[in-house]
């Protein structure tokens, strides 16, 4: 089995996770910038985080034979402070040319507030001006439906944005069709307690098809499973899915999306 982990917060994980992922067939991991579990006190905290994501973490992953790529932004949970968000938006362009930066993410909404939307729109503008791919986080639980609708509206109202260059993550049964029908890619996050279980993610693929969709573990400092993608692949096998269908979902689909950024290469040359 070969796979790509399209969404993993590896700075929160130990080296054993890298070993396990590489052993399970992972060839590359993509790490969106996100909330640290606490609010950072200044733009300098984000500068250091972006350095960690673009300098240190690729080297750590390489020790275990894994390619590491990243996405940059200020996450929606810290976007209520528009002044801080503007400061962070101001330093992101300095990092965009770095060799492992794939685009802007994970942007999106958390509580669906006016300021969050303002900051989301500024990120969309930044991505459009710099020709970047976009990775979007959708809110949790009861806020997901509304947040997904607001995010789609914001993306659609910027005419420079091509939907096939945007992945909207953490879809579930009530949001996946909204995302796919609007032309975007959809990400399913495999979490033991919230978002999607393996069984439900496979159900979604069986119902909505396997075009423009991927699965990720979104492993971070919370309850999450770094091997969620290969474990779900095993469950697909149990259900009788072909090796080719599994390979498409866990390898060729993320490869297809990410390859829209010319920097995404799986070999070291």
């Amino acid at each position, binding site marked *: 089995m070969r796979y790509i982990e399209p969404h993993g917060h590896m700075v929160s994980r130990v080296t054993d996770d890298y070993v396990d992922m590489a052993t399970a067939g992972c060839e590359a991991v993509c790490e969106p910038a996100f909330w640290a579990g606490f609010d950072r006190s200044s733009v300098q905290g984000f500068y250091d985080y972006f350095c960690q994501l673009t300098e240190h973490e690729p080297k750590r992953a390489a020790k275990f034979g894994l390619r590491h790529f990243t996405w940059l932004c200020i996450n929606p949970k810290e976007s209520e402070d528009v002044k801080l968000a503007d400061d962070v938006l101001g330093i992101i362009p300095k990092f965009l040319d770095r060799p492992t930066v794939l685009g802007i993410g994970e942007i999106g909404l958390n509580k669906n*507030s006016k300021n969050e939307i303002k900051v989301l729109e500024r990120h969309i503008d930044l991505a459009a001006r710099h020709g970047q791919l976009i990775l979007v986080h959708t809110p*949790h*639980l*009861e806020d997901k439906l509304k947040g997904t609708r607001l995010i789609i509206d914001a993306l659609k109202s910027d005419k420079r944005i091509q939907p096939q260059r945007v992945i909207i993550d953490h879809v579930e049964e*009530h949001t996946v069709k909204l995302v796919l029908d609007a032309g975007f890619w959809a990400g399913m996050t495999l979490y033991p307690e919230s978002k999607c279980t393996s069984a439900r993610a496979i159900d979604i693929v069986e119902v909505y*098809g396997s075009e423009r969709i991927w699965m990720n573990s979104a492993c971070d400092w919370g309850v999450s499973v770094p091997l969620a993608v290969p474990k779900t692949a095993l469950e697909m096998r149990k259900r009788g899915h072909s090796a080719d269908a599994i390979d498409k979902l866990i390898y060729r689909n993320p490869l297809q999306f990410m390859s829209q950024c010319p920097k995404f290469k799986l070999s070291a040359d």
Partner: protein
Amino acid sequence: MEKTMTRQEALDLYFMDARSKLIDLAAFLDRVDRAEGEADFRLKAFRLALRELERKEPQRAKQVLLTLSDPTTKPIAKATAKAASGAWPETE
């Protein structure tokens, strides 16, 4: 996408797991019943969502999620530190 499992195979693979979750659900409702004090909107939303299991067409997961969702479309004035609760307080 082609169908991969027969109904029998789906039962073989998932019945025990679903049975266990069903009993957990029943025990959860019993536990809440035995406890004292007032319930909040979450229990009401939960009971409404349970009704969706009786549907005849395979849209139950989606309908349960919709029952537990905020259906409004206007952004809120300001984000607070309050975590999401898993149900919408105004579900009718």
